[in-house]
């Protein structure tokens, strides 16, 4: 199923290409029919090009590579700190951690510029950090404090930073995809040279919002890169139990949209695949669907155990053997870009930053309750009543 890493949809009028594409589909049919279980990691990455270390590094500056490492480490230690604070009752509500998936957002967001936009669903703390929202502002938001990036009104699932072009933070599965389509439309409308990356989990692919958005994005060739983070489980439902077709990237074919698979445990593969999509979008080539194959090492949310009814402890332990941080650290050590000692120093640094973010959140005041009615409407100076609870 993974023979072709990048699928360029054939234009309908190109008969030869269309025929070829049909033949290709027939080749695949029997294979698809017998596909009952999710491919294991070897199968999922079997078609990843066999690149040398040098090729994997793509000529990136050592400084940028070290920054990627720093960002992944910070993501990991920050989320560990979040888990600790949640256990202590400092953080409330639903809280979804990114541990295991760090390479996806870090690699992909490094492939665009701060002028570009990012939007995602509710497993979002790391996307916010990667866009430059400070760890203190993210942690304070988790604590529900006034210095949080949404002033305490959003929480874990609704972080925003307009100045950093970080557009949230959305809680309805798949609901962010049409929104991102609108941002991409705006970019085209105003003839800007920007792009938007929008993320969703694999389970969102079954929502109508996904399909409606892909169709319009391809129809109007807007600069949107849709990254599906396939961590194999929508809460506790394995992807193969939820979709008649395992390979998400193939869904793009229905919309004549280019698509690709990326190894979501390899930050440099994420960077490479996303960069190609970003460059194409910026050049007016329209949207791309990227399926990032990844895994979460933690439960769906803080109330979900790491393993249990839908996956075994052994499954998770096996996947932890592919820790994206370890994979990248080994490469950087082999290439003399970052030694083990430097890595440990970096780890101490990000632990300190995470601790400080918690201290900052702890000291930040609770939002004033009399701000309950602020920031609901932009234009409140209207005749008549906007609120009907009789309290004001």
């Amino acid at each position, binding site marked *: 199923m993974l023979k072709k890493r990048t699928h360029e949809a054939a234009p309908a009028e190109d008969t030869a290409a269309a025929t070829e594409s049909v033949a290709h589909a027939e080749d695949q049919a029997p294979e698809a029919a017998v596909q009952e279980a999710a491919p294991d990691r070897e199968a999922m990455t079997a078609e990843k090009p066999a690149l040398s270390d040098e090729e994997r590094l793509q000529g990136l500056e050592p400084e940028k590579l070290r920054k990627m490492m720093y960002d992944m480490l910070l993501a990991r230690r920050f989320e560990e700190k979040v888990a600790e604070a949640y256990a202590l009752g400092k953080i409330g509500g639903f809280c979804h951690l990114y541990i295991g998936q760090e390479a996806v957002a870090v690699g992909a967001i490094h492939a665009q510029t701060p002028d570009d936009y990012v939007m995602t669903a509710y497993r979002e703390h790391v996307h916010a950090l990667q866009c430059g929202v400070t760890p203190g502002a993210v942690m304070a938001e988790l604590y529900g404090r006034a210095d949080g990036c949404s002033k*305490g009104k959003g929480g874990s699932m609704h972080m925003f930073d307009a100045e950093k072009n970080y557009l949230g933070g959305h809680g309805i599965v798949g*609901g962010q995809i*049409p929104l991102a389509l*609108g941002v991409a439309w705006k970019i085209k*409308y105003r003839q800007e040279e920007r792009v938007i990356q929008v993320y969703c989990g694999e389970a969102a692919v079954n929502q109508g919002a996904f399909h409606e958005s892909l169709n319009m994005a391809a129809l109007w060739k807007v600069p949107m890169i849709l990254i599906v983070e396939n961590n194999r489980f929508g809460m506790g439902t394995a992807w193969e139990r939820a979709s008649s077709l395992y390979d998400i990237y193939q869904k793009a074919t229905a919309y004549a949209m280019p698509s690709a698979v990326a190894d979501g445990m390899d930050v440099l593969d994420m960077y490479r695949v996303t960069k190609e999509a970003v460059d194409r979008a910026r050049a007016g080539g329209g949207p791309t669907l990227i399926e990032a194959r990844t895994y979460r090492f933690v439960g769906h949310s803080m109330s979900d155990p790491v393993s249990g009814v839908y996956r075994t402890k052994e499954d998770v332990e096996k996947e932890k053997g592919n820790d994206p941080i370890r994979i990248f650290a080994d490469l950087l050590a082999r290439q003399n870009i970052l030694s083990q000692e430097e890595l440990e120093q970096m780890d101490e640094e990000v632990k300190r930053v995470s601790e400080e973010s918690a201290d900052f959140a702890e000291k930040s005041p609770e939002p004033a309750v009399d701000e309950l009615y*602020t920031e609901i409407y932009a234009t409140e100076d*209207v*005749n008549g009543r*906007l*609120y009907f609870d009789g309290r004001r």
Partner: protein
Amino acid sequence: MAVITYREALNQALAEEMERDPDVFLMGEEVGVYNGAYKVSKGLLEKFGEMRVVDTPITELGFAGLGVGAAMTGVRPVIEFMTWNFAILAFDQIFNSAAKMRSMSGGQFKMPITFRGPTGAALQLAAQHSQALESQVAHYPGVKVVVPGTPADAKGLLKAAIRDDDPVCVFEGEMLYNLKGEVPEDDDFIIPLGVADLKRPGSDVSIITHGKMIHVALQAAAQLEKNGIDAEVLDLRSLRPLDTDAILATVAKTNRVVLLEEGWAFGGITATIAALIQEEAFDHLDAPVLRVTQADVPMPYAKAMERAAKPSVEMVIQKVNQVLYR
């Protein structure tokens, strides 16, 4: 003032606002090449081009969400639903995204988007095409809702909606598009949101209503006059914000109230207004507040049944007589 139709008034509002602000664009099904399912956008594609008058696939959730995303990054979409019945598919984006974006981001985003389309029953369109949904939409804090009942109100309120920095839902009357009336030609003719209009002054009883139902109320008032009853008709024009001062003033004036809406009784705007009146003007009342609404059933197709289900002039007269103890 020129006498034009409700449809032409809406068309003028769109054309003037698009002329005034290059960030305003119109998007929806059949708005371009087809000139609009109800011809509201007639001629706009020719005038403004296909980036600003955009025909969409039939994909309400998708293009409503597109509008919300575009609005949060600074442009001013006008999203047309062929009817509000079809917008039910898009309610996730109106209620979960447009209504909440400003609040859940701590005030970082404006949401200058207008959603518009016809509401209410036309003739024999049956259950799925005959719903008046404005009360349901007004339920959500974060949105604004206007319901113009005349050509002038249609123009002034749509222009105000487009210029507003919050999501405004405009509920047009499907049966009103051909209605003619005087409409100011001034490019800056605006009817501010939240300002009710006394469509008929009176002293004996207040009929409070909105949208297409103002015409039912006015007909009822004309017949009541023959029986020596002087009814006041207050047109809310806007449900959220709601002109509660105007409501309380008419209650204080006549002491008797009949509330009229096209939609269903349960949770309708009339229920909210009845609660408001008993909370804040109880001492002014000389009779219980009564309501006239649609029958609490999905709209049937058969002509006589449909007629029976809709609020009528007779029902309004009956309730007026009741509050007057006649």
